[in-house]
């Protein structure tokens, strides 16, 4: 799973990155999600090319936290975004990330 890539669910969302935060709107159900600075870095890397493991390494380096913690946080966040319909796994096995 860590080698999977993620894309934003552009058909259903609108978003704006403003300074170090992001507001994401799920247009289907009119829900709003404000992402903090770390979540915004992850969000910016959800480009369909960058594997989750690379995103976790970048977070680990940027915020000086150990890789395991960064990886765990990344997975939790990504899982949450998938559940909210904001992003899509670029995998043939788009099952829930464990």
């Amino acid at each position, binding site marked *: 799973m860590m080698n999977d890539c993620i894309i934003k669910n552009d058909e*259903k969302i609108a978003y*704006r990155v*403003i*300074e170090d935060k992001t*507001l994401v*709107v799920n247009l*289907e159900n009119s829900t*709003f999600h404000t992402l903090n600075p770390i979540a915004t870095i992850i969000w910016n890397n959800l480009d369909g090319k960058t594997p989750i493991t690379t995103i976790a390494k970048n977070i680990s380096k940027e915020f000086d936290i150990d890789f395991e913690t960064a990886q765990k946080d990344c997975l939790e966040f990504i899982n949450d975004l998938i559940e909210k319909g904001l992003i899509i796994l670029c995998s043939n096995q788009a099952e829930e990330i464990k």
Partner: protein
Amino acid sequence: MEVQSYNFSINIGEMPITIFFDDNDFLEVNMTRFSNFISEKENGSINIDVEYIPLEKFKLNYEDLESPKIGFDSSKNRYIIYWNSFEGTFNMNTMIGKISCNNHAGLNSFIRIALSLVLLKKQGFLIHASSLIRHHKGYLFPGKSGAGKTTITRLTPDSTLLSDEVSLIKKVDGKFRAYGTPFWGELSIGGENTSVSIDDVYFPVQDRKNYVNSISIILGLEKLLPNVIFYLNDLKLEKELFDLCFEFISYVSPYELHFLPEPDFWRFIDDE
């Protein structure tokens, strides 16, 4: 048998609307309600045919709907709209609307829905907000029912009311302006048919003391969006509206207005 038609024109947000009635009494009721917005111009860019159906013959009952139902009839290229006590159609190409209703509220809602669709093409939107002009400056106070929109207008007698309930925002020559609307709330008074540049937006918060605090663009956008009026489920148009709202909130300075129901809150706004 030829049906006699009566009409008058109104102008809301620089958009002329001509309304045709098959019932003169119903026309007069609506002329009174829209009196501040009556326009001399007879040819509206939007034309609405109103069929008056007496209450006893009115068989529609959509009163359980919290929001209007809007579908699209592709064969006739028009939206089909129904909500509490009215049903109608609106064609965005011809800008012709048709509505069956028996009270002013139905026509009022229909015009709001049609305007929300047309305005987006003109870089504008409707929003649940009171708005007014005070000392030549425009103020917008967005909020849902109970937020204090009407209270703020009541506490500001030395002002020109644009609306205590639904304000119209439009981008004109690169600047955002608020226009008066005939859509009123608890105040039961329509706004004046004038407009003003909007530089500051205050989100009302009823509190135990008065103060104003600047908020971020992102929080401003999060607070603004739920108040924007747009009923159509069309992802492309909703994205356009999102972009326009972002542009608006980036253009203005957003604040939270914590206030007590007393005029003194203006002192804190004036200090900003």
